[in-house]
């Protein structure tokens, strides 16, 4: 209906005159922030600032303490890290650790996938997996190392066993939680398309449960990483080439505290790198893009 006409018909409606084109009265819809505010809005900048502050506190306290054996200063630690990096030792040790890690991780994730698919298939299977996960999820993997050494001897197989165990339960727990939280409507839609069996699992259930599956991958990676370093600290050498954990343990025995710090620093660095290179892009291209997590 024409507004003019309406105005004549009734005086219940009154229209206001708004002129947004007059520069004298118009209000700017958006104003740019000053430069320093814009830089401060970047979270990486804020985090780097915090790291710098912490490094400074470390440095000052270490200088005041003046005991390199207990607490080497920040600069000494960085120097030790760079030296170990240059000599190639840190890299070769990290490579050993990462090789074992990837084997254990892939093994554990595969085992969890098989168990989960079995568990969706039948109610008894789901009950079994549920019982197993609630039992073993609270038993730390590292506690099985003595038993593993007894069964598999001193060597990589023992560590692999512990790693697979560390990955399996958090992964299975999250995957199963993901499957059981899929909306019934989505399941009906899949059935409606006539999807059955594995096609139904791969085309509907797995993508629908993907947020939980990604969480499972992240959590179990962290579990594996921590378990492996811990296992290597206890027993990390096989055929003369130990991993990162063994490096830390060795240097402690040699009272090279700065090197111990450098080793710990490497553990943190690899963890953060993995998070940013693998999991962030994975999440960005899947669950965030799909709006399944915000």
């Amino acid at each position, binding site marked *: 209906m024409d507004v003019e006409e309406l105005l004549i018909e009734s005086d219940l409606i009154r229209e206001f005159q708004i002129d947004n084109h007059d520069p004298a009265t118009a209000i700017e819809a958006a104003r740019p922030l000053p430069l320093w505010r814009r830089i401060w809005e970047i979270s990486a900048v804020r985090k780097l600032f915090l790291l710098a502050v912490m490094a400074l506190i470390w440095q000052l306290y270490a200088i005041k303490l003046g005991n390199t054996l207990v607490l080497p200063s920040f600069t000494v630690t960085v120097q030790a890290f760079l030296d170990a990096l240059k000599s190639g030792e840190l890299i070769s040790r990290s490579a050993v650790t990462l090789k074992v890690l990837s084997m254990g991780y892939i093994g554990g994730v595969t085992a969890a996938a098989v168990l989960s698919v079995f568990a969706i298939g039948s109610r008894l299977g789901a009950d079994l997996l549920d019982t197993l996960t609630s039992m073993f999820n609270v038993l730390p993997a590292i506690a099985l190392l003595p038993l593993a050494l007894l069964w598999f001897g001193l060597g990589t197989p023992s560590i692999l066993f512990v790693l697979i165990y560390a990955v399996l339960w958090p992964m299975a727990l999250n995957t199963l939680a993901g499957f059981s939280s899929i*909306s019934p*409507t*989505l399941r*009906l*839609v899949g*059935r*409606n*398309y*006539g*999807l059955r069996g594995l*096609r139904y699992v791969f*085309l*509907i259930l797995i*993508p*629908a449960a*993907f947020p939980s599956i990604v969480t499972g991958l992240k959590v179990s990676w962290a579990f594996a990483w921590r378990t492996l370093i811990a296992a290597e600290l206890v027993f990390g050498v096989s055929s003369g080439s130990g991993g990162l954990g063994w490096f830390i343990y060795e240097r402690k025995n040699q009272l090279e505290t700065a090197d111990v710090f450098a080793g710990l620093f490497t553990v943190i660095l690899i963890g953060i790198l993995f998070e940013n290179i693998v999991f962030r892009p994975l999440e960005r291209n*899947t669950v965030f*893009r*799909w*709006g*399944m997590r915000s």
Partner: protein
Amino acid sequence: MSIASIDSTAEQKKVILSVEDVTLEYLTQAHLVTAIVHTSFKLFAGDRLVLLGPSGCGKSSLLKAVAGHLKPTAGRILLNGKQIRSAGPDRAMVFQEFDQLLPWKTVLGNVVFALTASGNMKRKEAELAATHYLHKVGLNGFLHAYPHTLSGGMKQRVAIARCLAMRPEIILMDEPFAALDALTRQKMQDELLELWRDIGFTMLFVTHSISEALLLGNRILLVSPHPGQIRAEVTVDPNTFGSEGDTRFREISERIHNTLFRDIADYSI
């Protein structure tokens, strides 16, 4: 609105769906609930049959049984003379819930996937068909958007386009507009009728809104609860009334309301 061009196809009276003496039961933790008892009706080609009843009267269960998600404990349901045994793409369904779209696929991807996953269509062909039907529901500008970026009304449009593109024998609608705001709902109702005139599908529509039933249906089955039974059938004559404000419309609404709620004053709303 007017329903002037009604039923040129339904004149032929070809039976698409035949529900014969069906009883439906389902299991909860403590009870075996009877949702529907000894219910029969027929759906003809081009029909817009509405199952109307209060919440919990079993109308949705009946729709689920037709979809093949729920097996009748007695009686049988025939689609083109063949008994329905499982869910299939020849009965496409629009749900009330907005999460019926696959969130990991775009608008176009959702419709294409419905066509390729349900069997026979090649990708190229499916894309053409999907684009055609998405255009019909007015979503040609949103083909590559992900569902979470759409409004509720737009999501339901995608779901409707998906159903139409599958070219099913019947389109099953389970209160598809119930979760929408009033303005959007009205618009969607008009558009659905427009699509029906344009394409001429057969539809089984479930709702608890009397005015929605009168606007959309050419036949209305009134379902009363505890347990669900068909109380009456209303044939909506296209010339009976003009619009929702019409006196005749209000009279019929009131009649239907009285029929449905006569026996259940205790549970009154």
